[in-house]
């Protein structure tokens, strides 16, 4: 019998490959591009069914570029929503109907859309939101500030934080691979700092663009996908609590726990596709530790180099790649020798400091110092970080 060696392709004509091949094995070439352009390159290789956009700085270029992919035949459906609330509702509809969906927003857009994020997780749709963090009004700011991530922490969505253009590309691909696991199947928010990543142009290594992720298989979803048998909106219109009896409340409560449990179950997959939930930089044995995410980790890396060069002081950075799930074990292990833990952040409230304190409560004797903290789009120069460190350790 003659067996044909048929190469499977998606509707855009790209050869379908496994996430492992796309992320780890495919040969990569050097390019020089912005974070917004990296979003386009990731979506291009992700067999995305639908995307809905709405303009807001600094994510407008990324949203616009996904539209170009639609025009080029890589994305199935694309349109501009009436506002961010509409966008996040419309992508939910597309996901419930069985599509792989991605969208982008920033700052005030996130807040306007907010009701939808816990709805996403409660309906167990693996939507991906690329969040390009910006200051939250008022007064008006368009600059980088990640206060909005604090609001998102307990919506039941996974939250990952990319440091640079390269990591953003890889995380978007990995995000689909993890969020769509049948035993995970919750939304994924891939966050980056606006401007510092979205508008920054730097070197990036990309696999070829004629290969792509396998299309999403909606019949692996833990929730029934809308089809000829299942009408849309059944789950939202007819929830348990409408029955107003004991078992309905218990079911609602356990549903909430189950969403959180699903995030916990994402750990092994995220560890695999992100090569660990944390990353260390500097002298591993150092007792001065920075815990940070996003570009605050970049600034801390510069501070580690400067402390070594100008003061002869050894320090290290523990970068958190995932915030939900929170990397408890990794953090406890990485800070076991710490005397001082500094948490540099780009927001006014210090949400990461709060998370780290909670994680290390009765697990570490280190002094935990939530500094430096800058907000409203200010920059965090390494010189300032070093100055703060020297003040505390002397």
């Amino acid at each position, binding site marked *: 019998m003659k067996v044909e060696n048929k190469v499977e392709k998606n509707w855009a004509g790209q050869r379908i490959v496994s996430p492992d091949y796309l992320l780890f094995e495919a040969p990569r070439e050097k390019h020089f591009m912005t974070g917004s352009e990296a979003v386009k390159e990731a979506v291009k290789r992700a067999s995305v069914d639908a995307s809905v956009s709405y303009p807001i700085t600094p994510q407008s270029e990324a949203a616009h570029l996904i539209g170009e992919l639609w025009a080029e035949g890589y994305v199935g459906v694309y349109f501009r929503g009436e506002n961010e609330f509409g966008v996040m509702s419309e992508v939910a509809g597309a996901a419930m109907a069985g599509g792989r969906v991605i969208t982008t927003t920033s700052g005030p857009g996130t807040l306007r859309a907010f009701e939808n994020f816990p709805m996403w997780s409660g309906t167990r749709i693996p939507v991906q939101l690329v969040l390009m963090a910006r200051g939250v009004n008022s007064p008006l700011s368009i600059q980088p500030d990640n206060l909005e991530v604090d609001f998102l922490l307990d919506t039941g969505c996974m939250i990952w934080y990319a440091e640079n253009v390269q990591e953003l590309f890889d995380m978007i691909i990995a995000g689909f691979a993890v969020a769509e696991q049948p035993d995970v199947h919750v939304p994924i928010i891939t966050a980056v700092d606006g401007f510092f990543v979205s508008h920054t142009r730097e070197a990036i290594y990309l696999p070829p663009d004629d290969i792509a992720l396998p299309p999403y298989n909606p019949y692996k979803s833990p929730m029934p996908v809308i089809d000829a048998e299942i009408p849309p909106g059944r789950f939202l219109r007819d929830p348990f609590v409408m029955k107003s009896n004991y078992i309905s409340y218990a079911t609602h409560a356990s549903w909430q726990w189950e969403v959180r449990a699903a995030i916990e179950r994402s750990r092994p997959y995220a560890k695999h596709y992100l090569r660990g939930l944390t990353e260390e930089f500097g002298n591993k044995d150092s007792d001065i530790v920075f815990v940070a995410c996003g570009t605050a980790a970049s600034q801390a890396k510069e501070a580690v180099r400067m402390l070594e060069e100008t003061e002869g002081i050894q320090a290290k950075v523990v970068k958190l790649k995932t915030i939900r799930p929170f990397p408890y074990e990794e953090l406890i292990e990485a800070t076991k020798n710490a005397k001082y833990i500094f948490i540099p952040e780009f927001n006014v409230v210090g949400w990461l400091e709060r998370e780290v304190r909670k994680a290390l409560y009765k697990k570490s004797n280190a002094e935990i110092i939530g500094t430096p903290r800058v907000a409203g789009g200010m*920059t965090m120069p390494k010189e300032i970080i070093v100055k703060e460190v020297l003040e505390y350790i002397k």
Partner: protein
Amino acid sequence: MERRLVSIRMPALGGQGAVTAAHIIATAADNEGYYAVSNPFFGAEKRMAPSESYARIGVVPIYDRGEVVYPDVIMVFHPQVITMGKSYTMPFYSGIKEKGLILINSEHDLLSKEDRELLESKNVYVLTRDFTKFAVEIAGTELATNMAMLGALFGAMGIVSKESIEEGIKARFLKKYVASGGTASLDSAIERKFKRKLELIEKNLATASAAYDLAREWAQSQGMEPFLPPPPLKEKVA
């Protein structure tokens, strides 16, 4: 201590092309084999409002992001940066490092006696030229001011070749480039002016090249050393 990273701050006015300049500078430096990052930082984009861009070039990986608070190089794109304080920092040279470089686009010397004394105490090199007039004479448009400024930057730093600058300019105007609405309309305006894109590139290259020569000669007359050790990387962009 030998420099391993050059941080460049470009205070300009909206519409002058400082964001474009930063991208071309980083692309050219990357092409030469340095680590390079460009990063614009504008407010609500408006013509004539303050707008700043930053580029960083190094012989080690660069993690630093955001505003350049302690620059090695400052490129003042417009006299109003100094005369009207259209800058994110006051004075415009705030944070300048020892043996730094300042390029000022102005037909007049805008430094006060105090400015000059402070900059001399830090051994900062200052080159004031009317780069806009330079652009008008060579390219026939003041919109090429940014090309003159970036040519002068590389001429003075002496680390990036004209070939790499050419690659940077071509990457900006020949490859598909993503720009905001305002930048896209400026692009189409200048394309109409030059009728053909290649003519635009030729004029831009000529402007950058002439400014490079001018600044190279000036840097040699000042006894300036190259700003960085030779480039560490050889890999080319696809």
